[in-house]
Structure formats: structure tokens, C-alpha cells
């Protein structure tokens, strides 16, 4: 494994120019002040209730039974700095990628030109549980499927970014991007005076604009709602936060009903039409009449209303086919096919274990690779070869052999590092980046995104469910 890219220091251990002012500030700020500020941040996050629930954790095992399973995501008080040149490159690459992914979704649910042209084999598409035949031939406003995309990006070197995965179903984390910024401005106003940091606070406004712009045609003043599974969901804080910031109703399935092909919400003044649903519920649970019959989170008849074009659902049903890990290796091909351009952002080389050659190679090099479940998410069901024990490797080998097409593998990436305030002081820790890409009439991105940081030394897993934290991400304006 090569040495990871240090975002603050050059190989000669010189501070990179865009980190100069931050380095100066770090050098002159006493450790006690940092500790005090971190404690203050924790307290404020608790008071605001920026907490998340960890799946599979009972009340008893939580750190404090009286708070149930509500936990804080660790927040690192040292910001990550990105130059505007780097950001421009990233933003162009992200725009191109999300355009291609939306074009792919429109194609795969209509003419399937890309399959007929032989650019992607049909099996991983049509035999994929994420492919929704219900969506075939459905026209969605503006041909946009993934209105909100969270694209996970890692960097390996100077200007060298890789897309690790695309999240096109119900990507989360944007509230942390916004709250982290608010927290930093409160804790360290002096730092903002010294840097021209591109603002991100207009994200909710942009999101509302995008949502209203994709309302069914003919609706003058569309009413949008945010559909949440409810207060026990791990991302509930974010749902409530975004609904509040946009000034739209935060609804649960029970608050909506379908009558004569239209969707209504139950209000104190009677039924009220709903035109756009920003849903934070997976496809499977959206409509018990069409998908999982045991779902109490969804709205019976929603699919019918949707197919008739009487309501817009964001993201569309069936977007999972475009972010499935078995199709990830073909995204560069999608970009070439739909945009007629070479991809600006690289994919991580990926072995698809459905292919016998790839499978043989991976089994031979298991201890060097990262193996992921095709349909997994959130860092669960994942093998990190270099960190795994002999027994873990053997067990995983069995699982692969039992179902090779359930897995893909990638080289262990040397994720870049950023200075992070940990117990031992300021030390480099691995990070990734999730920018949020919004698609309506055009594609828009607020500068930056959510930086996730693996707080344990040497760890490459940044997921919040696995001990990861977050930091504020600064794109410098000049």
C-alpha cells in the first residue's frame, strides 16, 4: 500500500499554501482551547438534538440508557480545506456523472438503447432486484430520476479523485454538512475572517426550488412534502431539519392517502393536494399495494398516482438500478454513451465476481482487496483484506464461493488524510467526501459536501455506523 496523500502537507513536509493560515492558527491555539471548544460543540449538538440511532443497538447497550439509542456523530473541529481549482474540477466531473446516471435511468426504463448497443450486458440490469418493471414506460417530469445524489469521492493524490460509489436512492448526511458549518462559525468566527469560505447555507433553498420545479405539469403553485419513516428512523433529525428549513410539511405515510389517483394529506382543515413528495423511505416500503404488503410506512395506491403522473416522487422509484454496485463499473461507459465525453472523474478499478476471471483473481488476492456486497450499504457486510484475520478471510472466501455474483472487489485505496483533533493531539486521519448533487432543469451543487473522517488511527472506514465522524468542508473562493 502506497503512502496516503496528506492534504495539508507536501511530501517534503511543507504546509501546502491553501492550508497555510489554518496551520498558523493551529500552531498558536493552545490544546486546552481546542478541548474546551470540542466540549462546547458536543453540548450544543446535544441541545439541538443532532443525534442518530444505530441499528441493532438496544437501549441497554447504549452509553446512557436514559437517552435511549440517540447518539452524537463525533464532530472534528479542524476543517478540511479544498482549493477552488480542485473544486471546479470536481464539480464538473460530478455534474457530468450525475447527468449520465439520470440519462441511464431514463433509458433503462424506456428504450434501453445502451443495452441494445451492447455497451452494458443486459443480465446485471434486467435480472437485478433493483430494476423496477413497474417503472417501465413511466414518464417522469423533465426525465429526471435522481434529483438528489450523494456521490462518494476519495482522493489519492494531487487533483486525483476517484468516485467510490453513487448514492441515488435516499442519500443522507446533508444536514451534517449544514450543521457542521453552523457550528464552526459559532466556535471559531476568527477563522472565517481569515478565509474566504464558499457558503453552503442555501442548500435547503436550492432543494426546495428543485423539488417545485419537477412538479407534475399544469400545477401552478406546487405543494411539496417530505416523507419520513418517523421519529425512530436513524436519519429522523435530518428529515425534520430539512422540512423545517424548506418550510414544507414533514409527513409520515399515515398522513397521506390516495383518492381518485391524486395524493392528499390529512390536515386540520381537511384533505389537501400534494404534488411533490421528497421521500426518505426506500422503494420497498413506499406503497404496500405494489411492493412490501407489510409496510406501514408507505401510502396505499401511491404507485398508481405516480404512474398517472399526478404526483412527483423524488428520488423516483427504481433509481437503485443506477447505484447498484454491480453496475458501478459501467458508469464510465454510460458517460461515454450518453454524454459523448470521456469521464472527468475516475472510477475505482473494480472486479466483478460474477465474471469467473475476476473471481479467480480476487480469491487469489483476497488479503489485499476490499470486497463489498453488491446490494450492501453503510459499510456493513464488507471485507477489508489487509485488516482481516486469517479466519475472517477464510469465512469470507466461503461466502464468496457460495454466491460470487453477490460481490465486487476493489484495491485497498490509500484514502487521503487531513489533520484531525484526536486524544493524542492533532494527527492525520483518513477522509472521504460526499458532495450533494441536485438535478432539476439544471444540475446544481453547493461547494463542498460532507467530509467523513475515520477517527481511529489507520482505519479506512468512515461510516458513522462504524466509528466515523464528520468535519466541516471548506471550498476556498479564491
Amino acid at each position: 500500500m502506497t503512502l496516503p496523500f496528506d492534504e495539508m502537507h507536501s511530501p517534503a513536509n511543507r504546509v501546502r499554501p491553501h492550508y497555510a493560515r489554518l496551520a498558523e492558527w493551529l500552531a498558536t491555539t493552545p490544546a486546552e482551547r481546542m478541548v474546551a471548544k470540542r466540549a462546547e460543540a458536543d453540548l450544543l449538538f446535544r441541545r439541538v438534538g443532532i443525534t442518530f440511532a444505530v441499528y441493532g443497538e438496544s437501549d441497554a447497550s447504549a452509553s446512557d440508557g436514559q437517552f435511549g439509542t440517540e447518539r452524537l456523530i463525533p464532530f472534528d473541529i479542524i476543517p478540511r480545506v479544498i482549493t477552488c481549482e480542485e473544486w471546479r474540477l470536481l464539480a464538473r466531473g460530478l455534474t457530468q456523472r450525475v447527468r449520465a446516471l439520470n440519462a441511464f435511468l431514463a433509458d433503462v426504463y424506456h428504450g434501453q438503447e445502451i443495452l441494445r448497443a451492447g455497451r452494458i450486458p443486459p443480465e446485471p440490469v434486467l435480472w437485478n432486484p433493483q430494476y423496477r418493471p413497474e417503472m417501465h414506460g413511466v414518464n417522469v417530469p423533465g426525465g429526471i430520476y435522481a434529483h438528489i445524489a450523494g456521490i462518494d469521492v476519495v482522493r489519492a493524490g494531487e487533483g486525483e479523485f476517484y468516485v467510490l460509489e453513487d448514492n441515488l436512492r435516499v442519500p443522507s448526511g446533508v444536514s451534517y454538512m449544514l450543521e457542521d458549518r453552523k457550528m464552526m462559525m459559532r466556535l471559531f468566527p476568527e477563522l472565517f475572517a481569515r478565509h474566504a469560505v464558499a457558503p453552503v447555507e442555501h442548500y435547503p433553498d436550492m432543494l426546495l426550488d428543485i423539488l417545485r420545479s419537477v412538479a407534475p405539469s399544469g400545477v401552478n403553485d406546487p405543494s411539496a412534502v417530505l416523507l419520513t419513516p418517523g421519529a425512530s428512523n436513524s436519519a429522523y433529525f435530518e428529515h425534520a431539519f430539512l422540512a423545517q428549513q424548506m418550510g414544507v410539511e414533514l409527513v409520515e405515510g399515515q398522513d397521506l392517502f390516495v383518492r381518485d389517483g391524486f395524493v392528499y394529506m390529512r390536515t386540520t382543515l381537511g384533505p389537501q393536494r400534494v404534488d411533490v413528495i421528497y421521500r426518505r423511505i426506500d422503494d420497498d416500503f413506499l406503497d404496500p399495494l405494489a411492493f412490501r404488503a407489510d409496510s406501514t410506512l408507505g401510502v396505499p395506491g401511491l404507485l398508481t398516482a405516480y404512474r398517472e403522473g399526478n404526483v412527483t416522487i423524488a428520488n423516483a422509484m427504481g433509481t437503485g438500478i443506477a447505484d447498484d454496485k454491480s453496475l458501478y463499473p459501467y458508469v464510465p461507459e454510460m458517460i461515454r454513451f450518453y454524454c459523448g465525453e470521456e469521464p472527468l472523474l475516475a472510477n475505482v478499478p473494480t472486479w466483478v465476481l460474477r465474471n469467473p476471471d475476476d473471481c479467480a483473481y480476487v480469491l487469489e488476492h483476497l488479503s489485499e482487496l476490499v470486497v463489498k456486497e453488491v446490494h450492501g450499504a453503510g459499510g456493513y457486510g464488507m471485507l477489508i483484506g489487509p485488516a482481516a484475520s486469517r479466519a475472517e478471510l477464510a469465512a469470507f472466501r466461503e461466502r464468496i464461493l457460495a454466491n460470487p455474483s453477490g460481490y465486487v472487489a476493489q484495491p485497498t485505496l490509500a484514502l487521503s488524510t487531513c489533520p484531525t483533533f484526536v486524544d493524542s493531539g492533532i494527527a492525520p486521519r483518513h477522509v472521504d467526501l460526499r458532495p450533494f448533487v441536485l438535478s432539476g432543469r439544471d444540475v446544481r451543487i453547493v461547494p463542498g459536501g460532507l467530509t467523513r473522517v475515520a477517527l481511529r488511527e489507520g482505519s479506512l472506514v468512515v461510516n458513522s455506523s462504524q466509528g466515523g465522524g464528520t468535519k466541516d468542508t471548506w471550498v476556498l473562493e479564491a
Partner: protein
Amino acid sequence: MLSRTADHLYWMARYVERAENLARLLDVNVSAALLPRSTEEANQSWAASLAVVGALDAYTERYGAIDPRHVLELIAFDPASPFSIVRCLREARENARAVRGALTTEIWETMNTTWLDLHRRIAGTGNVDQLNEFFEWVRQRSHLVSGATINTMLRTEGFHFTRIGTFLERADNTARMLDVNLRVLAAEGGARGPEADYYRYSQLLRSLSALQIYRQAYRDRITPDRVAELLILHPDMPRSLHRCLEEITANLRRVANSQSAETERRAGQLHAELQFGRIDSVLARGVHKVLADFLERIQDLGSRISTDFLLSEAW
């Protein structure tokens, strides 16, 4: 506004008001324990408190004889008890959390901080002065929530349902407090002399934050008839039945929908009776009878409001 949202706001407000009422009730009881009086008298006072919150049967079943420590457990500290302050604050916070997007940041953070601080507060309630401090704290938190509501919330349905919750709970509480205490006094039949009665009445007034108001309003000694008048009919006393109904009808008018006419009519009628009622006729009918009738009608209003506005099945 979503029916479910209105429902959560309504219950959030009710539970906060209930927690405050409990805190005042218990505070007065704990302080009264410092007065020289027989165990029997003290126990009667604790039993009356249990009766006010409808927890007397539950208490007897669980603990038997009156013991202040157990009373405090049941209606203050036991999180599993449906009557306790802790439970009320939890329910209030859970309702707030379910609709935190519909609350202003000020209200939500007040609710959430209350909940987070509660555990630390409970830990320090070993003796009487700490108990008083705890009850004082609960009252202050309730005032903060009310203040944040009045000062930061948009005057739309959400606000009005919050207020309706507060005043329904308050009307219910005042009526019960008065009724239970008058019955205890009647049972004693003045056998303990006017001084003992004075303490009983001032205790009642204090537990409704009404002792100073009584002095200001009457500038005279405390008599049972005036106590009843103040708490039932006085238009400016913030906890009187009249005042509560005034608030309920005003807020109800602002949220009226196509099926709420009958509820509005009933609230308006009850309000008119209090507005134009005289204490002589209340006494002639019998205070207990008047209060029992009032409690029944307040409950009817509560369930009608639920059906008209808050339960989504209604549509």
C-alpha cells in the same frame, strides 16, 4: 397543518402544563410538611394531592398506607408511572421531537434541554430544600416553554392548538384542585378551627399561584366563597375557569373547520355561563355540583377537539 402535527403540539402543551401543575401541587405539600400538624392531617393532604391527579386508587393498590416518599415516587419521579412529572416531561419531549420541524428552534431547544437536564436534576433531590428546588425548576421550565411559544411562534394553527392544549389542561387542573380541597374541608366541617382552615385555603391558593392574586383582588381575609369566586369566575385570574374558557374559545375560533361548529358552540356556551355567572348562584347550586358538571364538559370538549381536528380518520 397536518392533523398529526396539531395533535403532537396539543399534547406537548398539555404535558408541559401538567408537569407544572404537579410541581406546584407537590411543592406546596412538601412545604406544608414543615408546619406543625398531626401526621393524620399531613396524610390527608397527601391523599388529597393523589386524588387531584386521579392517582389515589393506583397509589393504594401499589403502596397501601400514605407515605410521602411513595407519593413523590408515584407522581413525581417514577418514569414508569403514568402520573409522574418525569413521565409528563418525557411525553412532552417525545411529542415535541415528533414535530420538531413545526416548532421554533427556541421551543425545541427548551424542550430538549429540559429533558437532558432532568436526569441530573433528579439525582439531587435527597432532602426537602432540594425537592423545592426541583419543583421550582420544573415550573421555570414550563414558563420558558410558554414564553418561547408566545414570543417565537407564528400565529397560525400550530400556535392555536398549542394554546388549546395548555388551557384545557389548566381548566381541568384548577377545577380538580378546588373540588378536592373543598371536599376535604367540608369533611372536616371546620372542626379544626378557622386557623387550620386558613392554612388549607392558602395552601390551595399557593398551589394555583393564586395567593398573591387573591390579596390583590380582594384586599381582605381569605374566605371560602371568595376563593371559589376567584378560581371559577374571575375574568383576569390566569388560572380561573373563566379565563381558561376565554382562551379556549378564542383559539378554537381561529382554527374552525367545516365540522367543528358544534364544538365551538359548546365551548362558547360554557364560556358564557362563566362570564355571566355569579358566585351566589354557584353557591346555591353547590360548588361541587358545578365543578363536577364543568369537568364533564371540559372532557367532552377535549374529545370533540380530537375528533374534529386531530384524528386523521375523521376525514
